[in-house]
């Protein structure tokens, strides 16, 4: 049978109507003024009500909702953490968003994200056939093998200490400076920032030594460099 519904999460932008006074008449007249100035800005739209003050009048919300409906504005929800207002919202038939928009919280998250992007993803095990590892916004180190049929992907550089027999992608989001470092290179495929090369194209000289794979800045082709240390 074909599907009748499916559920999908999305983010909408909705106008928020901030309430700064608990005097219903004052609120009504200000809304009217707004509509006079710009009719299309409001009418036919759905809004979320966010009271910035205590609403001591128990019928305030009910009156406001009715008033908005008359103006063809559709109140869908209320954003508040106040228990009394939540109760009023229930009577007025509004959904409740309880999390407040907290600026400091968002800023904290950003900082956290920055520290994350510095961190490197470290895989100690072998990556086996059919397994797929993606290091988003960071470098990736694999200590074990990358077996045939496995894929390791990073937005940054990729370092692999074990044998490479699978697929390796560095700079997966387009970072052309990304590099691959390998000890034993016999991959199904290598790719840096979208440029790729299959196993057959790799010079045998680079398969059994420590090698750096990068993109040539002029020709954008994949190039190999043996890394040698003084003994």
């Amino acid at each position, binding site marked *: 049978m074909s599907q009748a519904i499916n559920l999908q999460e999305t983010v909408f932008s909705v106008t928020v109507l901030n309430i700064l006074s608990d005097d219903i008449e004052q609120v009504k007249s200000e809304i009217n003024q707004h509509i006079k100035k710009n009719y299309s800005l409001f009418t036919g739209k759905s809004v979320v009500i966010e009271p910035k003050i205590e609403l001591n009048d128990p019928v305030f919300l009910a009156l406001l909702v009715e008033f908005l409906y008359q103006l063809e504005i559709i109140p869908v929800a209320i954003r508040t953490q106040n228990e009394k207002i939540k109760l009023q919202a229930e009577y007025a038939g509004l959904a409740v968003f309880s999390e407040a928009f907290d600026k400091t919280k968002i800023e904290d998250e950003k900082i956290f994200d920055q520290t994350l992007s510095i961190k490197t993803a470290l895989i100690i*095990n*072998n*990556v*086996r*056939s*059919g*397994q797929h590892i993606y290091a988003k916004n960071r470098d990736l180190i694999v200590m*074990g*093998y990358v*077996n*045939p*049929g*496995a894929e390791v992907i990073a937005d940054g550089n990729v370092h692999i200490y074990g044998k490479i027999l699978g697929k390796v992608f560095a700079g997966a989001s387009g970072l052309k400076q990304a590099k691959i470092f390998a000890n034993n290179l016999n991959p199904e495929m290598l790719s840096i920032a979208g440029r790729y090369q299959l196993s057959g194209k790799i010079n045998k000289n680079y398969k059994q030594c420590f090698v750096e794979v990068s993109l040539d800045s002029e020709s954008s082709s994949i190039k190999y460099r043996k890394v040698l240390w003084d003994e």
Partner: protein
Amino acid sequence: MGRVIVVTSGKGGVGKTTTSASISVGLALKGYTVAVIDFDVGLRNLDLMMGCEKNIVHDFLNVAKNQASITQALIADKWVKNLYILASSQTGNKDDLTTQGVSKVIDALKKAGFDFIICDSPAGIEKGAKLALHYADEAIVITNPEITSVRDADRILGVIQDTSKRSKENKSPVLEHLVLTRYQPTKVKNGEMLAVDKIVTMLDIPLLGVVPEAEQVLSAINSGRPVILDKGTDVSEAYKDIVARLLGEDCQQRFLTEPKKGFFSRIFK
């Protein structure tokens, strides 16, 4: 606490059920209580290999679906004491099995005090195989000395790492063992077959044992008598070694090289 061991391979026909049957019998011969479960719903084979196909009243699916109790469904083995078989259903299909159903059966077997619970996995990496390895503490991965089955073994090891209950709950990982079956040292010597050390390097898990290719396996399967019960054959010795190593005994790997020809066979070549 019972050890739950899944016998799996990814590829079909490499000897999962033969190995499950022989290991179960071997453990029971050593005095442990063993339950062996056939997870291959719809394509049951284990009962044939154990010679108990005529004794099945209730099966695994009946217990998983609360239609029978575990004691009703367990079949006492006719070869050894302490061994019980939970046959699979021949009628249902793999989708009839659920995580809850399997968990119920495994818990009931653990509660009944079995020392070993051997789960004979179906081939593939679909639901049936994933459910068989879901509750495993240990995994015996079977492979043949050919590149396709080694690749599939690698794949199933990845699936174990990703989907087993232990990995999902961040417990210590599933203990992995490798069993190489149908090994022919002569062919390896001639370069026609993958060598054991090469396979161990590729898969990078400890080798539990190597079972040589032998004709007795076929006749054992057809007669419903686990091959480990044969007296003095290489295959039965190999399985006895595997059981011993599973119990932590330290015994040297055998059957890795060509058997030395005796005086007479060298003369009458």
